[in-house]
């Protein structure tokens, strides 16, 4: 004990001295005064681990792991055509936060790849610049994709894919696509599967996956201005439509079709194991379902009988020009010339089969793959996910309201107080 402790103390002391040197170094290197980073607050450390050091290249692109890999080839080609070096860096966690922070500090990338509902927050942080897409080029994109990247009547990015959710069914258990939610519940229960429907909620709820059912009963998130922008002062949560939806959810829970024990972690695997008759999920589930080797088919999510059709939320994935990038001219050039090409679309589609934003590429994909056709149709008919910053205050309270209702809370009261909580949060 004593010898080993002596050794340890020696080591510790040495380490201390070594560290004290680096400590005063890092003290100096840290932002001096009014550039506080998240590290000086009490935020959990995970949020600051993901951002890489900006690579030294003529054009730097940040994307998530999957996209970064898929973009390597496209980026290299663009680099060769322009005689420059292009680096694609993968940011595996919190890409948006890391990007906004790095950009504010002036050491972010030139191009960032991400979902369109980041636009509101990125714009209020002055992190991205709008892009003037020539009209001829605009016409090549599907309407819903363009609508996604349009914020305050300006185009903020070049879209490459749209995503939405649809209904998977295990054709061994339920051969035919249901016409209504009532059909779905009846056939799901009759199939003998452990769970008629796998729709991920968990204890915290999941407003995104619940939205199709919520919209069918008349619920909405934000109303729209005459120009088509979302209006943060017109909140749909707590309104009559949302309460009708809440009552439907309570009924579905009673039927065993909605459970808080079905989460984002287990819903896809439960379906793949044949324990769910139906699954509500997106293109990201296809690979797992195919790998499991079960017989499945896709169809649009049905609405409740006698109510509106179910509209999923449509997300758009896009490229953006960073406002403080060191190579803005190349960044804009990349978006105009390289991002919106069929080759880029194909590369990203191969990485994950989300329907492409370019009409030509999409036509090819839907002809070749029936699943993509269903997802494209769902995205086309979906409600574009609100990109306004106020949306940040909606997800949690609305999700928790869904979970509480499934767990047996009073539907009307729960939805009303969720609306109040959201209004208080977004001010």
């Amino acid at each position, binding site marked *: 004990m004593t010898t080993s402790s002596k050794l340890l103390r020696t080591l510790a002391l040495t380490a201390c001295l070594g560290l004290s040197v680096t400590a005063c170094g890092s003290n100096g290197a840290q932002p001096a005064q009014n550039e506080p980073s998240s590290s000086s*607050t009490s935020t959990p450390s995970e949020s600051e681990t993901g951002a890489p050091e900006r690579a030294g290249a003529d054009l730097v692109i940040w994307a998530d792991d999957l996209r970064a890999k898929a973009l390597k080839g496209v980026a290299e080609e663009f680099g060769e055509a322009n005689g420059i070096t292009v680096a694609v860096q993968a940011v595996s966690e919190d890409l948006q936060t890391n990007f906004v922070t790095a950009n504010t500090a002036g050491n972010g990338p030139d191009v960032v790849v991400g979902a369109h509902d980041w636009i509101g927050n990125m714009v209020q942080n002055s992190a991205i610049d709008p892009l003037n897409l020539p009209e001829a080029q605009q016409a090549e994109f599907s309407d819903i994709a363009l609508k996604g990247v349009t914020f305050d009547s300006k185009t903020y990015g070049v879209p490459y894919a749209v995503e939405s959710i649809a209904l998977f069914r295990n054709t061994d258990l339920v051969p035919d696509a249901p016409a209504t939610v009532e059909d779905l519940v009846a056939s799901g229960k009759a199939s003998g599967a452990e769970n008629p429907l796998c729709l991920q909620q968990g204890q915290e709820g999941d407003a995104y996956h619940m939205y199709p059912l919520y919209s069918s009963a008349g619920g909405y998130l934000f109303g729209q201005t005459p120009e088509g922008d979302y209006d943060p002062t017109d909140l749909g949560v707590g309104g009559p439509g949302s309460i009708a939806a809440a009552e439907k959810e309570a009924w579905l829970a009673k039927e065993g079709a909605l459970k808080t024990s079905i989460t984002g972690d287990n819903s896809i695997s439960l379906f793949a194991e044949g324990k769910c008759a139906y699954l509500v999920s997106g293109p990201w589930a296809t690979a797992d379902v195919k790998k499991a080797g079960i017989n499945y088919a896709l169809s649009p999510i049905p609405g409740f009988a006698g109510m509106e059709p179910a509209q999923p939320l449509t997300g758009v994935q896009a490229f953006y020009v960073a406002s403080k990038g060191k190579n803005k001219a190349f960044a804009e*050039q990349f978006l105009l010339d390289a991002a919106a090409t069929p080759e880029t679309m194909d590369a990203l589609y191969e990485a994950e089969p989300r329907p492409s934003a370019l009409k030509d590429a999409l036509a090819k994909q839907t002809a070749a793959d029936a699943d993509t056709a269903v997802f494209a149709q769902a995205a086309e008919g979906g409600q574009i996910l609100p990109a306004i910053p106020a949306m940040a205050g909606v997800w949690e309270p609305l999700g928790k309201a869904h979970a509480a209702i499934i767990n047996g809370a009073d539907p009307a009261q729960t939805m009303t107080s969720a609306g109040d909580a959201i209004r208080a949060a977004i001010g």
Partner: protein
Amino acid sequence: MPARTHAPTEASLPRTATAGTGPDGPGRKPAPAHRSLSATTIAIRVALLGAVAAVVVWLVPVLVAQERWIGLAGLLLGAAALGAVYSTSRLVPAKYLLPGTLFLLALIIYPIIATLQLSFTNFGDGKRGTKEEAIASIIGSSVEQLPDSPVYALSVGTQGSTTDGPFTFFLVDAESGEVSRGDAEGLVDVPADEVEVAKGRVVEADGYTILTPREVNAAGPVVQEFTVPTENGAIRAQGVARAFEGRTALQYDEAADRIIDTRTGESYGIGLVGDSEFFVKEDGAPAFSQSWLQGVGTANYERIFTNDVIIKDFLRIFAWTLAFAALSVGLAFGLGLALAVILNDSRIRGQRLYRSLLILPYAVPAVIAILVWSSFYNRDFGLINETLGMRLDWFGDPWLAKAAILLTGTWMGYPYMFIVCTGALQSVPSELREAAVMDGARPFTAFRKIILPLLMVPVAPLLVASFAFNFNNFNLIALLTEGGPFTADNPYAGGTDILISYTYRLAFGGAGAQFGFAAAVSVLLFILTAVIAAGQFRATRALEDVN
């Protein structure tokens, strides 16, 4: 989990028998006259001081370039102090105190001051940059392409420098193929024989140097801000090889500090929305989502003390935070101590094997362990309910959720306590126990009256540290229950929320990240934790009297 991240061990083990071989290793003896430094010591000292010098040489240009004067001053003072103290053979006490002091300043005092500073600002989403940056972004974003205007293939030419200009735009109309030349004066047609066009772009022009794409990019803002005035707007570059005719819809009037919309004539002045200034419409609503970093005085603190939602749940959550921290430490310590005592008995075979197995949970990364545990608790598909044949709604019932938190917390925390107690037990001389038994004490009494008090001397400060750690154990709560379950009428305060997870949600769950507010909350939490820890250390001082 408790105390895994901090190192109170260093300070709290009372028997600091020997000092190590730092640069000051042999200088431990008080009489400098007998000092004779060995070659190794000198080498180590030179190497470490050299490293300090190297760091200074490396960082000074960086800090000067970034104009971080305070950081620079701190670096130089720290380096000077290190150099002065370790290059002489005097100042022996300072040799011991300086590294710790530097650590204290760099890793504790500085972050606290930075957090305190931050708590008096509105820093957060939409309020990150300066006012100038916000205005530039608002104006810059208002450039719109004129309807039906042509798209041009752009070549940038210059008769001066390729980095500073003056620049001239050579434009080829993508449809008609007509070539024109534009500068600050305006646009003129260019006869075909003065330029050479290839692949739809001007590649050579008489009297001009055409910039390569790389040069256009490098010229950056100079090219980006260059415009060629036209009848309805201006032609500006987009990327390195295109240009479009657009119009800036908004203008900033610096004298009046207002933004004017040239299309409608409306103008927006500064107004206060919440705590922050925005450019507002006449009705007081923000006209643009961009705001900027501002000092807001004590507004963040006022918000904490006047917000109904916060006040309403604070006491309940504070009580659970205390209970959670105390119980996690108590349970982990109880289990760890019991196992340590049992395995300390030399009659047990395979002591080492048991000990290695028991500290396994310590070797599993916390994040993974918590996520695996969280799947165990699933009501319908979880391991625990399946094994027990029950359908307990672990995360749906507030008391079961609390039990789940404590169970997982104990599982993660006991190996640390086990290691600490095993070490401490081995340092208690066995004669003491034997003597007690000889005097007629029963084994349990001997343990309680003799061993435990001796054990508590080194262990008690660790328990205090573990308590403080668990008081702010964000990971466990956030990854296991996310603070849930929540009641139907309150999505902000859950059944297992502790102060840190609760305030994290308040600061980041609503309208984006609000770092200023979060900093104010952190300062208050820091004060609260400090007061509690101070009280506990005062209480444990009584234990040291045992020695």
